[in-house]
């Protein structure tokens, strides 16, 4: 077992951002931490990187209980490295950025040159060796940050949303790097994302986080809403852009809702005059095992998951208008 977390919480000014009863991570795997913004992913990564102590609870790393004493943490930090979302490079050259972890570990100069050049090749940045780090694009910065992290020869690399603000070409490169370092160097990888497709493509195992807690399944189609009672006496969740979904919830304050993609019905033809029916356009299609994930723009983006056979029978394609219905039982209210 790589990590084991028991009753770990993190609180800021009375606000609990993380509350994990029991969570474990297996060694040698690529693990995806999936959850929406605000689910505590970054906080969890910083705790796993020993940069942030938990408010309470205990952490075990490789079967040893972590002593949160400052002097002991430095030894652990040299085994686990975090690449931040929007990583920051030192204001010097790309070469010196990657050289930094080697230099502080007193690695001999000849070995440092060899390692830095090898890492530059791995991340496809060899031609930027002497470039100023602040002249790089977002994707290039991400790649150099990964190379710099790998220069630590870590046992674990933690990546916070590594592909969130990079273009497709850089995404492909970063995915390749993740697979290679896990397969060839046996480095355990934990990455966070809010993209279900990315996780299914890359991760051996997925952990879902929602509002600071580990969840059984991923919550998707998450929106802030408020519940109002209409003139007809029915209660509705009022979503952004003025959409409303009927509900039986008795809650009255501002809430968050999640609409289960597997329970949304989709069709090229409008279902009678059923409640909670929206018209939208298909903007993206992805095969996901035996299902097809359909992203529909209905004024709000909605992910719908339908069996492949059903999708094929409906002959739907990108750009086509569809009708989607969100039954009351597909809506979870928090």
């Amino acid at each position, binding site marked *: 077992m790589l990590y084991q977390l028991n009753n770990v919480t993190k609180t800021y000014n009375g606000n609990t951002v993380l509350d994990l009863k029991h969570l474990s991570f297996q060694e040698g795997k690529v693990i995806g931490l999936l959850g929406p913004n605000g689910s505590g992913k970054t906080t969890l990564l910083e705790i796993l990187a020993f940069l942030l102590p938990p408010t309470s609870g205990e952490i075990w790393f490789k079967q040893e209980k972590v002593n949160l004493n400052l002097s002991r943490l430095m030894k652990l*930090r040299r085994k686990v*490295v975090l690449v931040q979302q929007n990583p*920051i490079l*030192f204001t010097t050259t790309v070469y010196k950025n990657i050289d*930094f972890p080697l230099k*502080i570990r007193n690695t001999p100069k000849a070995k440092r040159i060899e390692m830095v050049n090898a890492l530059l090749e791995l991340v496809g940045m060899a031609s930027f060796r002497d470039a100023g780090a*602040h002249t790089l694009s977002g994707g290039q910065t991400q790649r150099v940050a990964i190379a710099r992290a790998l220069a630590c020869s870590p046992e674990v690399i933690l990546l916070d949303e590594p592909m969130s603000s990079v273009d497709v070409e850089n995404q492909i490169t970063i995915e390749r790097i993740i697979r290679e370092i896990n397969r060839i160097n046996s480095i355990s990888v934990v990455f966070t994302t809010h993209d279900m497709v990315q996780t299914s493509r890359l991760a051996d195992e997925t952990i879902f986080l929602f509002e600071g807690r580990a969840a059984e399944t991923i919550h998707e189609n998450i929106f802030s809403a408020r519940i109002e009672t209409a003139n007809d006496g029915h209660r509705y969740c009022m979503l952004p852009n003025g959409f409303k979904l009927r509900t039986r919830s008795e809650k009255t304050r501002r809430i968050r809702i999640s609409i289960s993609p597997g329970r949304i019905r989709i069709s090229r033809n409008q279902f009678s005059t059923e409640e909670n029916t929206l018209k939208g356009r298909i903007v993206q299609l992805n095969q996901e095992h035996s299902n097809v994930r359909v992203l529909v723009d209905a004024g709000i983006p909605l992910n719908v998951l339908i069996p492949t056979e059903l999708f094929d029978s409906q002959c739907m394609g990108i750009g086509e208008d569809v009708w989607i219905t969100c039954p009351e039982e597909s809506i979870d209210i928090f």
Partner: protein
Amino acid sequence: MDFLTDSFFSALLLIWTLDHNLIEIINVSLKVSSVSTFVSALLGVPSGFLIAFSEFRGKRLLITILNTLLALPTVVIGLFVYAFISRRGIFGAFDLLYTQKAIIIGQIILIIPIVTTMTISAVSRIDDRYRKAALTLGANLRQTAWVIIREARFGIVAAVVMAFGRVIAEVGISMMLGGNAKGFTRTMTTAMALEYDKGEFVLSVALGLVLLGVSFTVNIFCNYFQGKGRGSS
């Protein structure tokens, strides 16, 4: 108007010909100001860094006090130091009064708050991600501190340059503690005051032009380093 123009051109001639008197006065100013800036940087930069980097009770009060000390008049500092180093003062036996050392001491007191507060400002502006990046890459506290100082280097250099600009142009401390002795404690500012009293405007104007030139150069360097510092935060 003729008087001003004549004085101006005569002053330019003094500068062009590197008049001995002029050079002697400029040397004293540069020497005294350089030493006080160097010592203030040695004390103020680490202090500023420690204050910015650490969390402790009373931090905001300390910063407020330092900001208040920025407005200390030079004559007040001169008076304060005089009380200590005059013959009746506790350090009277060291015979510091009316020496370059006395001016240096007074100028250090003047500019340490400047160096410290500007260093605090430069370090505080540095993105916290640098600290986290250094720590996660395995740096210890000393190495992490060096990373932050390096990232804040432009702001820190601007602080030191600004401090130099302040001391080279001050007159209160130099006058009260230096005594304006020719070739010894006569700085550009005290010499200007003396020559004005004597009605000798040419040397005054020449010194004024040199001071303006120094101030202008200091401001150019300050803007340059502060601009670089803003670019990297």
